[in-house]
C-alpha cells in the first residue's frame, strides 16, 4: 500500500497541477502561511524561497492595510506588474496565501480561474 502523502507533498501536488494547467506561463509558485512561512514551493533553486515567502505575506499585509484604511473591503488579490512578468498574491480564506510568478504575457485570467480551484484544494489540505 502506498504511503500517505505528507501535507507538504499534497501542497506540492497542487502547485504542480497549477503549473501544468497553465502551460508555460508559470515561473514558480508557493503556498505560504500568513506569517510568511513557506509551506510548499515550486521555484528554481536561484530563488530564495524563504525570503520570497516573507515578502509575499508582507505584500498581502500591506494590501490589506490599504484596503482597510480606504474602507475598500476584503483584499482578493495583489498584483505586482513588472517589465518581465507578474507576481500575484492570493489569500486562501484566512489560512494562508498562494503566490504565483507569471512570465511576461502570461494569461492572468486563466491564473485567476486556476487559483480559485487551487485555493479550494489548499484550504482542504491545510484544514
Amino acid at each position, binding site marked *: 500500500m502506498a504511503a500517505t502523502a505528507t501535507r507538504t507533498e499534497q501542497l506540492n501536488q497542487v502547485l504542480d497541477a497549477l503549473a501544468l494547467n497553465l502551460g508555460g506561463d508559470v515561473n514558480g509558485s508557493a503556498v505560504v502561511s500568513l*506569517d510568511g*512561512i513557506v509551506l510548499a514551493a515550486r521555484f528554481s533553486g536561484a530563488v530564495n524561497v524563504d*525570503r520570497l515567502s*516573507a515578502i509575499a505575506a508582507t505584500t498581502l*499585509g500591506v494590501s490589506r*492595510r490599504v484596503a482597510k484604511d480606504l474602507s475598500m473591503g476584503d483584499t482578493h488579490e495583489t498584483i505586482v506588474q513588472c517589465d518581465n512578468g507578474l507576481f500575484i498574491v492570493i489569500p486562501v480564506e484566512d489560512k494562508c496565501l498562494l503566490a504565483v510568478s507569471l512570465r511576461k504575457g502570461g494569461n492572468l485570467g486563466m491564473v485567476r480561474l486556476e487559483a480559485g480551484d487551487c485555493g479550494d484544494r489548499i484550504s482542504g489540505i491545510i484544514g
Partner: protein
Amino acid sequence: MTTTVRPVLGDFMSTTCFRYLRLGAEDTAGRALIVAAGKSRGHSLADVLKGLKPDEDVAITAKLSEVLGAEGTRLCLVNEIKQTDVGYEVHITESACASGVVADAPICAFTLGVFIGAMEVVTGQRIYGKEVECVAFGGNECFYNLEILV
C-alpha cells in the same frame, strides 16, 4: 577610529522603543515582516548552536537560554524546549514582545520567528510555528508549537 558600540548606553534599550518599532511595523505591513526578522536572528545563532542534535532538548534549552536570556540579549527567559511527534514545544516567559502589552490575540511575532530560525538551524529543516499561549493574551507563559515541515 569610530565605533558603532555605544560607549555610554551600551547594547541595551528599553522594551518601550522595541514595542513601538515592532507594533508600528506590524500595523503597517502585518506580522510576516516581523516573523522574518526574528527568523533571521534565529539563523544568526548558527555558530552558537553548532553541534547540537535535534533530540537534545535540554542542551538546546540551555544554549538558547544562555544566548537569549538574562545573561544574553534578554529577549526572554527560555524555560523549556521539548521535542514532540511533529517538532517542538517552546515555553518562555518575560518575552520582550509581550512586555507591557495587552492584546486580543497572541503577539510574539518576533520571538516566535527567533525560535523558528534557531530550530531550523538545529534540525536543518523548514519549520512552521504557531503561538498557542501568550502572556499579552492572558496566558501564564508564551507557548509556541513548532512543526517540522516534511
